[in-house]
C-alpha cells in the first residue's frame, strides 16, 4: 500500500493526464462508432475549457457547474456546426471539421475575453484525480450500456452499412448528427477538467496536433471500441515517459507504434483481444469502420 501512495505522489499529474486523455478518446470514439471521422474534438474541448474557466474566474462557481455549462456550450456549437457538416462523406467531413477547429483557434487567439494568444491563467485548480476517474467511470458505464440500447444498435448499424441501416428504418443522418453533438459534449467535459487541472490554458492547447493525439488514442486502442479508446489513451500518454531516454527522438516511438498498429493490427489492441474471443470473422466484418 505504501508504494502506491508513493507512486501516486510522484506521478499524480501523469495519472490525471491519462484520465483526461481517456475522456477525450471516448468522445472521439462515439463518432467513430457511428463510422464517421469528425476531427473537432480538440476544438470542442477548447470551447468548453474557455467557457468553464471564464465562469470559474468571474463567478467562482464550482467545477461541476462550470463543467456542465462548458459541455453544454460545446454541444450547442456542435449543433450549429453539425447540421451542415454531418451530411458530408468520409474525408470531406474530416476536412470540414479540421477547418472549423482552425477557425475556433484563430478566434480564441484574437478575442480579448479569451486572453488572446496568452490565454487564461490562474484558473482554480479544482480538478482532482478522483473527480476525473469518477467522470471516466460514469462515461464508461454509459458506453457499456449504450451497446445494448436501441440507439446503440442504430449506431452500430450505421457504421456497418449505412444503406442497410436505412432500409431498417434507421436515419443515418440523424445518427451521425447526434453522435457528433454527443461527442462535442464529452470533449467539452474533458476540456473543462483539463483547464481546472492545468491552471492555465491557451489556444495552442486545442490545435490540430492535439486532435491528432486523440485520434491516435482511438486508433491504437481500436477505432470503434470505447475500451480500446481508453486503453489507447493510457498507452500513448505513458509511452513518452517510458522512452524519455530518447530525448529529441522520442516522438519517433509514437510514429512507429502507430504505423505498426495500422498495418499489422488494424482493429487496434481491442481488435486483437476480440479476435481471440469471437473468431476472425467478426474482426474482419468490423474492418470497414471509418469508411465514409
Amino acid at each position, binding site marked *: 500500500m505504501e508504494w502506491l501512495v508513493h507512486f501516486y505522489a510522484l506521478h499524480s499529474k501523469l495519472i490525471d493526464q491519462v484520465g483526461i486523455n481517456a475522456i477525450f478518446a471516448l468522445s472521439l470514439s462515439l463518432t467513430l462508432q457511428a463510422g464517421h471521422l469528425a476531427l473537432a474534438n480538440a476544438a470542442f474541448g477548447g470551447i468548453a475549457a474557455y467557457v468553464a474557466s471564464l465562469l470559474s474566474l468571474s463567478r467562482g462557481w464550482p467545477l461541476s457547474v462550470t463543467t456542465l455549462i462548458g459541455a453544454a456550450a460545446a454541444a450547442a456549437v456542435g449543433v450549429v456546426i453539425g447540421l451542415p457538416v454531418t451530411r458530408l462523406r468520409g474525408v470531406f467531413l474530416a476536412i470540414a471539421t479540421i477547418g472549423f477547429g482552425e477557425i475556433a483557434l484563430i478566434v480564441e487567439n484574437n478575442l480579448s475575453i479569451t486572453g488572446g494568444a496568452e490565454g487564461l491563467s490562474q484558473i482554480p485548480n479544482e480538478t482532482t484525480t478522483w473527480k476525473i476517474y469518477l467522470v471516466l467511470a460514469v462515461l464508461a458505464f454509459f458506453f457499456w450500456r449504450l451497446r445494448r440500447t436501441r440507439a446503440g444498435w442504430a449506431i452500430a448499424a450505421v457504421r456497418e452499412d449505412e444503406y442497410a441501416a436505412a432500409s431498417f428504418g434507421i436515419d443515418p443522418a440523424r445518427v451521425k448528427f447526434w453522435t457528433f453533438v454527443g461527442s462535442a459534449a464529452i470533449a467539452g467535459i474533458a476540456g473543462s477538467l483539463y483547464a481546472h487541472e492545468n491552471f492555465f490554458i491557451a489556444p495552442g492547447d486545442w490545435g490540430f496536433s492535439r486532435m491528432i493525439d486523440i485520434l491516435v488514442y482511438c*486508433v491504437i486502442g481500436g477505432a470503434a471500441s470505447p475500451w480500446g479508446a481508453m486503453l489507447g489513451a493510457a498507452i500513448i500518454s505513458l509511452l513518452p515517459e517510458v522512452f524519455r531516454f530518447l530525448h529529441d527522438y522520442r516522438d519517433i516511438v509514437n*510514429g512507429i507504434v502507430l504505423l505498426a498498429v495500422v498495418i499489422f493490427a488494424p482493429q487496434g489492441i481491442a481488435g486483437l483481444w476480440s479476435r481471440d474471443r469471437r473468431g476472425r470473422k467478426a474482426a474482419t466484418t468490423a474492418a470497414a469502420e471509418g469508411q465514409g
Partner: protein
Amino acid sequence: MFDQQLANGIFLGAVYALFAVGYTLIFGVLDILNLAHSAIFMASSFVALALVGHGMPFWAAFLAATAFGGVLSVVLDRVAFAPLRARGVGGGALGPLISSIAFGIIVVSVVRGIFGPDEVGYPAGAVVSANLHIGHATFTAIDLSVLVISLLMMIMLSLLLKATSLGRAIRAVAENTKAASLLGIDVERTIGLTFLIAGALGAAAGILIGAQFNAVGILMGQRIELKGLAVIILGGMGSIPGAVLGGFLLGLLEVFSVAYLSSSYRDAIAFAVMFLILIVRPAGLLGKRAARTA
C-alpha cells in the same frame, strides 16, 4: 500599393499551388488524404539547406533535394500505403490517413533530431537576390524565380499527365484501378511514380519557400499542411488545375485581406473559405466528385 499587393499575392499563391498540386495528385489517384506530404515538404527544405551549407550551389542543392523528396515520397508509399493496398483497404478509409500521419510523425522527429527545433536561414550570399521593379511593385529575384519555377513545374506536370503514356496510366489508375490493371497497366509501378512526382513537387515547394523567406524550420510543414487542404478543397479535390487556381486565389485573398481588412484574421480566411465551399459546393470550383452521401 495595389500593384505591390498583387505581386505579393501571386508569389505567395505560386508556392501554395505548387504544394497543393502534389497533395491533390495523390488524392486524385488514390483517394488518399496524404498528411505526410507536408513532412516531405519540410524535410526536403532542410536537405537543401544542409547541402548549401556544405558548399553546394543553390541550384544543385535544389535539384538534389527535390529528388530526395521524390524518393522519400516513394518510401512513404511503400511503408505506409502499399501494405494497406495489398490488404484491400481502399481510399477513404481511416487506415491510410492514419498511416500517413504516422509516417509524418517519424519524418518530423528524425529531422528535429538531426537539425534541432530552431528555425535557420541560408548562409549569407548563398541565395543571391537583387531587387526588381515592375510598375509600382518591388520584389526580389528569388520571388520571381519561385514563380517561374512553380509555373514551369506545374506546366510540366500537366503535359506529362496529358501527353505521355505514364500520364495516361496515371489517369487510368485514378479512374479505376481494377480496369487499369486489366488493360495491362502496371498499377503498383504507376502509383510509385505518382508518389515520386508528388513528392518532388512538394519538396520543390518546401525548398523554394525556405529560400524565399530565408527561414527553414520544423514547423513550416504544419503551417502549410492545413492551408494546402484549403487550397485543394477550394479548387476541387483531385483536380490539378483546381489546385493551381485555388493556390493563386488563396494567396491573393490572404494578401489583400491583410492589406485592406485586418491582419489578425488572415489565417481564418483560408479556413472560412474552405468551410463554406464544403457546405455550399463540396466539389470545389473545378472538381466533379460527389462529396455528399445524400
